């Protein structure tokens, strides 16, 4: 399988890169690890005329701990995140999520955190070769006007956001730094996602995700990530969940739960805080209630965009949500990192 033709730039610094994005506009894509983009190009799903490589931008490849928390450049390799001791010690949920991405030899050395967050949505009817797609009508995402993943069809695209790192980072209230030639803006990570299947990111054509900011760990907080898949590597999640639990004196004071792989963007479960707040951390009955809420919320979104059945994935939301919340609460109480917890 060959790649279609394009022009290639390797800017020496971020400024130059942003200049290029600005001048090429929508015909241009940022090339980081290439593990998602190049497959899509081979399948003819995207055909940028220009690729701007981040290879030489060492300023985007840095991970460091500051007083405010963790600062991760968008082009930091997933392997570097896993190898970074503070992540292992203080952000076990992030460690679990990054570890769960793809298969290690892709993830470790090529894939980047920015690439994982900015990957396009997936659907079993869309993420196929040209040959495969040619036998059907063009779907919404491909510029047509139908959706095969939604029972009875739909006027919008029902693809799923398959980033494994997004749910946990959102649960931890991570922020992202977005830059263009003339502007820098910082916003909560969840605002990166549009929940529009056709165009799942809110990035403008001339913008680039440059940094992820994760708040500093607080005493009494715990994080966890859960992923359900047939196999232990390679697979995209049928359902995933990121959970953050802040406790004080054994009670939950703040909590977030974000479900991945089921909706057009990461799905924040709104009722979780109301139900769990001030309850003893790890209270199974309360967690069960939240898990059922999560399932009911997800049920409105889950489409037939994977080969696994919708009904099964829907039901598994509750199981995966419960497991993530329970483990996050356990960690909050025990204050153990990923490696210790194992």
């Amino acid at each position, binding site marked *: *399988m*060959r*790649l*279609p*033709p*394009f*022009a*290639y730039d*390797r800017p020496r610094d971020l400024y130059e890169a942003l200049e290029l994005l600005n001048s090429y506009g929508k015909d241009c894509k940022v*090339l980081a690890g*290439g*593990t998602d983009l*190049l*497959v899509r190009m*081979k*399948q003819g799903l995207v055909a940028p005329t220009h*690729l701007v*490589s981040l*290879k030489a931008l060492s300023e985007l490849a840095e991970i460091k701990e500051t007083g405010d928390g963790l600062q991760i450049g968008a082009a930091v390799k997933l*392997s570097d995140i896993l190898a970074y001791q503070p992540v292992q010690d203080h952000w076990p949920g992030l460690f679990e999520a990054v570890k769960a991405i*793809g*298969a*290690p*030899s*892709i*993830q*470790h*050395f*090529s894939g980047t955190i920015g690439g994982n967050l900015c990957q396009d949505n997936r659907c079993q009817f869309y993420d196929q070769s040209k040959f495969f797609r040619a036998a059907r009508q063009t779907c919404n995402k491909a510029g047509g006007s139908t959706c095969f993943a939604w029972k009875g069809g739909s006027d919008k695209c029902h693809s799923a956001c398959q980033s494994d790192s997004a749910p946990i980072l959102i649960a931890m209230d991570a922020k992202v730094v977005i830059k263009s030639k003339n502007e820098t803006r910082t916003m909560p990570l969840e605002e990166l996602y549009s929940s529009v299947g056709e165009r799942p990111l809110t990035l403008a054509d001339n913008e680039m995700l440059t940094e992820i900011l994760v708040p500093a760990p607080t005493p009494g907080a715990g994080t966890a990530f859960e992923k359900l898949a047939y196999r*232990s*590597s*390679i697979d995209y999640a049928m359902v995933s969940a990121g959970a953050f639990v802040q406790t004080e004196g054994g009670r939950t004071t703040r909590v977030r739960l974000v479900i991945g792989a089921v909706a057009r963007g990461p799905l924040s479960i709104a009722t979780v805080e109301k139900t769990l707040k001030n309850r003893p951390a790890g209270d199974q009955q309360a967690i069960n209630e939240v898990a059922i809420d999560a399932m009911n919320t997800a049920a409105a979104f889950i489409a037939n965009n994977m080969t696994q059945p919708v009904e099964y994935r829907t039901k598994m939301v509750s199981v995966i949500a419960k497991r993530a919340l329970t483990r996050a609460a356990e960690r909050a109480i025990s204050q153990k990192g990923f490696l210790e917890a194992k």
Partner: protein
Amino acid sequence: MNKQPLEISINGDCYSLAVEPNRTLLELLREDLDLTGAKEGCGEGVCGGCTVLMDGKPVRSCLTLALEASGTHITTVEGLAQKGELDPLQQSFIEHGAVQCGFCTSGMLMAAKGLALNNPHAGNKEIRNAISGHICRCTGYTKIIEAVEAVVDRSLEKR
């Protein structure tokens, strides 16, 4: 599209080439340089057959632009043996029956080499992890894991 210059070291040999931007590293190796040891098993980064080392780290050459490899050192399976001496991993694969049809072998070897370079005392779990993005249909992975373990064991002895 216009070709762009590419300076690259492959198995210790330096090349000054001009390649098209859409050339993958795998195409460069197999079609332009006749280094056919790396295999295309899927072309989309799932099977691992095309894995080579870039500056000592395993990458999928089918999803790596040749130009992205500019200025790096690439090692392919052809470059594992040194001066006619097989790499200990090659020897171990051969002795442990880790090779059947052989199509996944070069990718597996390069992943294992990457592991040995980066984590010379890896345990069973790390070994499985390192080759978990590689599909083998013949061996059930058992003998491959065993072969890598044996080399790790040896390096432990040396320590």
